[in-house]
């Protein structure tokens, strides 16, 4: 397996110059996720505003794949409706679990298509999905807290 398939230039660029890193206010939910097999960690906050993802801020330690993935996530979901962003999560997850057989849609996933090669390295799929799973969890919690406020 050619290691260059994994380490696309786009991934290395995001790794060296991550977008949107740091923890910011305001936020409705904060989660801490770990990849127990290797110890990669991310603390991630979500700020929703009027059904849209207003901000995703994060503090992460981990490998180039997990760091670059958090950076791409930040690029992709901010500004989208929660529903649209959840659809992107599904597309990205499908790409990761597709064993290299899924043709990614560049219009949808933008820099995320660079992760297509990760699908061929089973040990690294969890690295790529860590920030996305954290975002999904935080968004669900943020939506719950909004509902509670509306109910009250």
């Amino acid at each position, binding site marked *: *397996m050619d290691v260059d398939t994994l*380490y696309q230039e786009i991934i290395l660029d995001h790794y*060296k110059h991550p977008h949107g890193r740091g923890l910011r206010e305001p936020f409705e939910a904060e989660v801490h996720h770990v990849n127990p097999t290797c110890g990669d960690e991310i603390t991630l906050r979500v700020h929703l505003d009027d059904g849209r993802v207003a901000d995703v801020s994060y503090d992460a330690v981990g*490998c180039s794949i997990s760091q670059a993935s958090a950076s791409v996530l930040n690029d992709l979901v901010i500004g989208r409706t929660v529903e649209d962003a959840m659809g992107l999560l599904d597309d990205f997850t499908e790409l990761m679990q597709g064993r290299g057989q899924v043709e990614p849609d560049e219009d949808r996933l933008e820099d995320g298509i660079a992760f297509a090669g990760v699908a061929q390295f089973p040990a*690294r799929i969890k*690295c790529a999905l860590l920030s996305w799973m954290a975002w999904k969890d935080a968004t669900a919690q943020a939506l719950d807290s909004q509902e509670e406020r509306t109910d009250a």
Partner: protein
Amino acid sequence: MTVAEPATYDVTRIRKDFPILDRRMAGDLPLVYLDSANTSQKPTAVIDALDEHYRQHNANVARAMHQLGAEATGAFEDGRTKVADFIGANRREEVVFTKNASEALNLVARVLGDAGRVREGTDVVITEMEHHSNIVPWQLLTERTGANLRWFGITDEGRLDLDQLDELITERTAVVSLTWVSNMLGTVNPLETVIARAHEVGALVVVDASQAVPQLPVDVAALGADLVAFTGHKMVGPTGIGVLWGRYDLLAELPPFLGGGEMIETVTMERSTYAPPPSRFEAGTPPIAQAVGLGAAADYLAAIGMHNVAAHEREITAYALDSLQEIDGLTIIGPKDVDMRGGAVSFTLDGVHPHDVAQLLDSRGVAVRAGHHCAKPAHQRFGVQSTTRASFYLYTTTSDIDALVEALHHTKTYFGA
């Protein structure tokens, strides 16, 4: 330590005993296996012993009244005798077979609680350099019983910090459990000092020898510890079998661990009485073929001589420590001196995460481990989240180390570090 005469240790000949070392990896690259602290490779003698057992002698043990049953029982118990001889046990009944070292340590923690040895008001003392399998069972036990969990720290150099020896191990201490050789730092701990203090206050000593039995001559009778745990697969044996050695009189006092077949004396619907050790601690069908394989592994290592294995390990480790320290940006976490040190070297490389290091090394056919190596507290102690670990064994050559160093330079270039 006896140093082997070069003529008596022929690594090229030893490598011929391990068929996997001839494997070609992706890109037709030779395998450079530097992950033996994770699991060791297996010699033909062990592979053949497993194969022959399944082809010729397979049956359940201790209960089948047929010829195969007798053969399988004999082979299984021979495995126990070989392991007992290999570690210098006074009696073969002191060797309890478990699933792995983790189960052996969990067994000890469970029965010491059930026996009331560890209870509220007593202390359990461990160290910061333990593998999770020698931390978590003690956390579970102390939470369950209300006992206190205390631990030794690690010095900056990566040695056990014994400054607080007398304050940590006191009259309240019921058990001290520590590793002989650290799987992350490579440190060999001064067991005599700890054992002497523990016994002075009447505490039991449990030793995690998972990294020690594969690479050092071990004589449990002379060591003075009360219980010693290790695993088969790190000492060129099969997976699925671990060993708990215990002083016979102590084992005989302790209650059972798991209940089931083969561990009983008699059973009525109201109650049961239990078999003497080791059967008391071996409920259910044991790892039969694995015991046969482990016996073959012990014979294999004994024929080479553990003093020779240890001398080779030391030579390779010294070579690796020197070579790795010449790489700019590489920091070894753990002792940099080969004295009182085992053959696992963990390190960080500036600007490149350990997973990425391991991936790049793998693309060159070099197999190492990256992550926290099930020793998160030890990593935390040195302010690192994870490390890359290269570990060596009786078949490791200086060319393997050269290949590692070359691949590390390539990794640095690749990531522009």
